[in-house]
């Protein structure tokens, strides 16, 4: 009797299991299909010029630093949190590096206007005036970014503050500090930088080659995949995002994991800032306003649930591509005026979320039908 009871329930479970495993990947496939649809549509609508390899490479080139930041954001969102400080940290890092590299650091009459800023500034000024080697500058900024993330994580964990709030404050803070370091955009004329951009690249065909920034993105992506699926930390992130209380009772270091997640996000944001400097050869404290929302949109379009616990790094990568494709299509169209551009972007984002919900819901139904 025992046996039979056991078996019946179990067989029942087994049957459904197959469905579940499949359904788990459905949002991912939905996203993938959207990417394909968009690209094919573009090719069809704008002919060989859109279909060209260059456009494809540019797609990655132009979204490299968004990609890096979004991948970091993915972990935060998987852990059930959110990070609004991304854009500000990118801007901060970019201007910090620029200030480090270019010793003509600061226009000072602006500092006279704000004594508090001056006080805060003197430390940086000192560093900035001995213009550091770019690699050192990059190192420093990455460390700063990580520390900043860690700080946010600590406040979130130890004081039980909502991530939305803490990172929002973090956003204001980083944004402001960026302006403290240098009040306006600053070009980087470092030979080292120029070299970086020109020499390190993989040529594909004439005039088209994969630049360093894209390589960075690729590396970050692979590392992220590994972390997410092949490390205890990665699994802990999923677990905590899914059910924090249980995760804690199961002996997972919830606190440490969370803090690490935000540290990681801080690091990737800073890294995105570095990639930004490679990409722009400049730093700008006013850049990337609202960038965090792009990152979040990419993650969500990529099929990760804002509630946490469910999602994939790969999905995020596709989400980034979708955002990039939207931009490209609009530019190729070339007829939308400023406000229609905004409306279009908004609506397209909505459309993709809608498509996703539809497909996912459809799959759920099939699963249930099959299960019953």
């Amino acid at each position, binding site marked *: *009797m025992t046996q039979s009871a056991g078996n019946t329930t179990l067989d029942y479970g087994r049957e459904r299991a197959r469905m579940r495993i499949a359904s788990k990947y459905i949002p991912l496939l939905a996203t993938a299909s959207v990417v394909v649809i968009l690209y094919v549509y573009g090719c069809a609508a704008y002919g060989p010029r859109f279909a060209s390899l260059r456009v494809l490479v540019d797609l990655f080139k132009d979204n490299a630093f968004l990609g890096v930041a979004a991948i970091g954001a993915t972990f935060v969102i998987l852990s059930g949190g959110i990070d609004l400080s991304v854009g500000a940290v990118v801007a901060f890092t970019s201007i910090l590096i620029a200030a480090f590299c270019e010793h003509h650091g600061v226009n000072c009459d602006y500092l006279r206007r704000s004594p508090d800023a001056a006080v805060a500034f003197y430390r940086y000024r000192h560093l900035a005036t001995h213009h550091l080697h770019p690699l050192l500058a990059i190192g420093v900024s990455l460390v700063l970014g990580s520390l900043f993330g860690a700080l946010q994580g600590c406040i979130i964990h130890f004081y039980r503050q909502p991530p939305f709030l803490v990172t929002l404050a973090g956003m204001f803070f980083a944004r402001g500090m960026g302006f403290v370091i240098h009040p306006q955009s600053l070009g980087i004329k470092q030979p080292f930088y120029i070299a970086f951009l020109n020499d390190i690249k993989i040529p594909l065909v004439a005039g088209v080659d994969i630049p360093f920034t894209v390589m960075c993105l690729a590396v970050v992506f692979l590392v992220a995949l590994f972390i997410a699926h092949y490390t205890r930390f990665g699994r802990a992130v999923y677990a905590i995002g899914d059910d924090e209380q249980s995760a804690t009772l199961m002996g997972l270091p919830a606190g440490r994991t969370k803090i690490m997640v935000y540290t990681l996000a801080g690091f990737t944001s800073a890294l995105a800032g570095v990639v930004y400097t490679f990409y722009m050869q400049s730093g700008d404290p006013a850049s990337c306003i609202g960038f965090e929302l792009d990152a979040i949109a990419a993650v969500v379009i990529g099929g990760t649930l804002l509630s946490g616990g469910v999602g994939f790094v790969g999905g995020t990568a596709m989400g980034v591509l979708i955002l990039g494709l939207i931009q490209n299509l609009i530019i190729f169209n070339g007829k939308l005026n400023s406000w229609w551009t905004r409306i279009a972007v908004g609506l397209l984002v909505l459309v993709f979320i809608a498509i996703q919900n539809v497909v996912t819901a459809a799959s759920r139904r099939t699963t249930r039908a099959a299960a019953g």
Partner: protein
Amino acid sequence: MPDQLLQMQGISKRFPGVLALDRVDFTLRRGQIHGLMGENGAGKSTLVKTLTGVHRRDAGTVLLDGQPIDPRSPKQAEALGISTVYQEVNLIPHLSVAENICLGREPTRFGRICWRAVSQRAEAAISRLDLHIDVSKELSSCSIAIQQMVAIARALDIDARLLILDEPTSSLDENESQELFGVMRKLRDQGLGIIFITHFLDQVYEVSDHITVLRDGRLVGEYETASLQRVDLVSRMIGKDFSQIEAARHAPPTASATTAPHKEKFVQVSALTRQGSIAPIDITIARGETVGLAGLLGSGRTETARLLFGIDKPDSGSITVDGQLVSISSPRQAIRLGFAFTPENRKVEGIIPHLSVRENIILAIQANKGIWAALSRAEQLRIADSFITALGIKTPSPEQAVANLSGGNQQKVLLARWLANHPRLFILDEPTRGIDVGAKAEIEKLIASLCAEGMAILFISSELEEVVRDCQRVVVLRDRAKVGEFTGDQISEHAIMQTIARHEHEA
């Protein structure tokens, strides 16, 4: 006489507003299954949680194998060989069974998890419980019972010296409980110390060697199971004279036996079905009748209730109320028809934790009245107070947040919420789950009196004796289908068990 595994002395723990543990001593020997008994709010769970590092104790000493220990987190506790299975399954729904077993201690090579080893280890842990599950499947696709087993498998996966089972059987059916006890005995013989917390008296007597009783955060005493009469145990747990309960227990049958027959039909369910949750089912409930839904866990009891209350939509079938054909597609509609429903999972589906007792109680009435016709505060207080006294809800004030009450009292608040709404049909899903004997008796008594007042009641419970005691009609379910129905004198635990078992053999 086996040596001491665990000694806890003078353990105290204070939470804001309540002294949860007051100088409690507890001793566990190797190779011993030690029952920890007490009402809700007696401090069982708190005691366990101070031991597993979820809470820090305010005072007292803990010796494990004579070594003083002070775990600050479940992880440290596990490292010390103390592992726990909690009442609600505490696992990660969207991860695979294998991962849930190994989570946080996955075998890694150079920091890289090797998944093959993970699943092998999971297989091993599972097979230790004589279970056979596809460990690669998502946990959320398993039945609660299986999930519970997985939780235990996880607890055993580390070489535990001390295993704590906090209400492990509350969601297991008879067979699964038996399997579990088998495992427990095996482990005891291997020299593990097991702390076993439960509300099922039979189960304590079945497996435990010793029993420690707590009440109101204080130690009542430790006893040899064999030498402790059930009656004494119960009276020690609730600190009341036993005769009261006896009275409460005997009241329902007498009350209902007289009122059971010649009642006009109130709700008639025919061929109600939903793919994947319940095969076509017929139920009729008359006014002043208590109909029981009996069956093993996952047999479709809760599913039926959900359909009846409009939480899930049926694929086909019909419901008539007073002969009128009705369609119920949402709880609101069900409530308008005079239905009420206390769900099985009180915390998630029942209470509004941070709202006050008052607000929780008047919620259903207000929802029924709609947004604009608001009850005056005075009116709300009147209702709340009347029910607090009527049901004996233990709370410092009607403004206390429900989250701060013990399980039993939360359940009472839920009952109050619906009674305030004067339902005509009351669907009770496991109303006595995880509730101490005293409260159980009170609730059963309440059911009887409501029934006597002419309310129709659909009573779902996994404790057959309750069903038998309280119902004038019992519908037996198995594998999501109705397999039998008893009325009046036919109703007996034996008969019901037989029905279920017979079908199992045929299956």
